[in-house]
């Protein structure tokens, strides 16, 4: 079973977002593998372990720094990694990203594609589902439980929705987007970290994938950011101290009479 996992590199969730010259300043950002993609990597590894066969290939699109995300996935146990080189500004359009990743998936061949439900940077939540459409595959998004049967070419998934979970059956190959709760990602082992050093990470350009670079230029984007802003600061609040019963009573009064929200 060939499992392809798409991983994005994003700023760590502890990052305080600052603007510089009108855009998000990423100069001092600590880059990490997207947390939702970590669940996708882990699920790929678990499926391979459960089946006792198969290959997990991790693909990341972006500038040279994304190699670190690929190496991280390799240290966890992924078999191979591929770096698809791309300019981050031009590739801020999710449809362009999905188009490139779909071409990479075709070149690799696959039985299952896994990725996170969203990148915790621009929060588009689009690429995984778009991949399915471009590759003419079924998809299940926001998945918290997954079973696959490669012999029958079938799978079962549980997907989180408002007020509960939907249970789905799907045909393989398919695209699955991972939600937190799907699994508990492992830590890299020393052996895994050492093994990364021996791995060669091929670099593919969009042209290597048969894509016209002009179709991926910034001007070809279907959607683009015009400008950025930080949320307005919240006005200073009223902080109460003292006897628990008194402060609780005062808080209830303020919520009802001043804020008028309860």
């Amino acid at each position, binding site marked *: 079973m060939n499992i392809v996992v798409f991983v994005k590199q994003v700023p760590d969730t*502890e990052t305080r977002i600052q603007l510089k010259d009108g855009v998000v300043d990423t100069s001092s950002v600590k880059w990490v593998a997207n947390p939702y993609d970590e669940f996708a990597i882990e699920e790929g590894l678990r499926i391979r372990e459960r089946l006792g066969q198969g290959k997990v290939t991790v693909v990341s699109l972006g500038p040279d720094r994304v190699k670190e995300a690929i190496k991280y996935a390799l240290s966890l146990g992924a078999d191979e990694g591929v770096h698809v080189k791309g300019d981050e500004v031009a590739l801020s359009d999710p449809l362009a990203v999905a188009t490139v990743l779909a071409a990479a998936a075709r070149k690799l061949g696959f039985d299952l594609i896994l990725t996170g439900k969203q990148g915790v940077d621009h929060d588009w939540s*689009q690429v995984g589902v778009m991949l399915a459409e471009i590759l003419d595959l079924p998809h299940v998004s926001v998945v918290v439980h997954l079973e696959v049967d490669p012999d029958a070419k079938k799978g079962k998934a549980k997907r989180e929705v408002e007020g509960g979970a939907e249970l789905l059956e799907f045909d393989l190959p398919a695209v699955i987007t991972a939600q937190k709760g799907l699994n508990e990602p492992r830590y890299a082992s020393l052996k895994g970290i050492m093994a990364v050093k021996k791995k060669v990470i091929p670099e593919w350009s969009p042209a290597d994938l048969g894509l016209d670079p002009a179709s991926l230029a910034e001007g070809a984007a*279907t959607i683009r950011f015009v400008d950025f802003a930080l949320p307005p600061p919240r006005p200073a*609040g009223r902080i109460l*101290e003292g006897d628990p019963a008194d402060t609780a009573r005062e808080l209830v009064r303020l919520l009802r009479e001043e804020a008028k929200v309860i």
Partner: protein
Amino acid sequence: MAPTFAVLAETKDGVARKVTLEMLAEARRLAQSAGGGSVGAIALGPLDAGEPARLAQHGADRIVHVESASLTTYSAEAFCGAAQAALGQAKPDSLFIAATSQGKDLAPRLAARLRVGLASDCVGFEIRDGELVARRPIYAGKAFGRVSWSTARPRIATVRPNTFAALPADAARKAEVEKVALEAVNVRARVVGFEKSEGEMLDLTEANIIVSGGRAMQGPENFELLRRLCTVLGATLGASRAAVDAGWIDHSHQVGQTGKVVNPTVYIAVGISGAIQHLAGMSSSRTIVAINKDKDAPIFKVASYGIVGDLYQIVPKLTEEFAKVLRE
């Protein structure tokens, strides 16, 4: 040329959900601000007899309805085919879809099929020089970006629920219903069941009041304190990542950058210090209440009201006090 909007009606058991009416109101406002455009509603699957009139009364000028046996339950593939068929009839410049589990599952598939731009989870719109511009949170709300579309039509946007107010029903408003047929769609991912989550609480993204617990809850058993407060207030229970990662409560309750981004009227943070990834997910709440024993905790910087003290003493008193005043 006057702009044309369409709203993909999200329905439940044949009835349009509140977010549908919210989107109609915003589309109406934009159409008017652009000098009198039209607003269509697109309904896929079963629709109660009174619903077309209700959609018209809340802002739709026309209704395109696709009905087919394959639309009885939601599937991305069948709904994508149906939406495409409806768009062929409605031909809007801009299409709004709800940023719900269903809408977020469908919209990227539809945008990729039509090869048009999709702005996700929008919280504001304006028309600038005749072009639609959308405002949307990024980094879970640590920042906002405004986005614009290429010339490919329709522009698609998913719209966050509880962001816009629905218009009051106007009985004088009427709309024609146009039926569109759907050819058979090969559905390769099918919903076969539903598991309801425990309890009767609203989903975090739909809740008006949220009570969240953090690291200071110390264990799963102490969440009972918060559940009691939730019951009194009709609130939904949330949690910080620390509490979820410790295994005290299920991930579906997590608020923050790797959980839900919420915007309730009241958010009560109990024993939550306010890590930046938590603040990102809740700081657009209208009123924030913090209860924490550390008066220097970052949560107090975003709080509208706070109590510095021991949550194990304060929360029971607060529950008692709310129960008393809400009974009156």
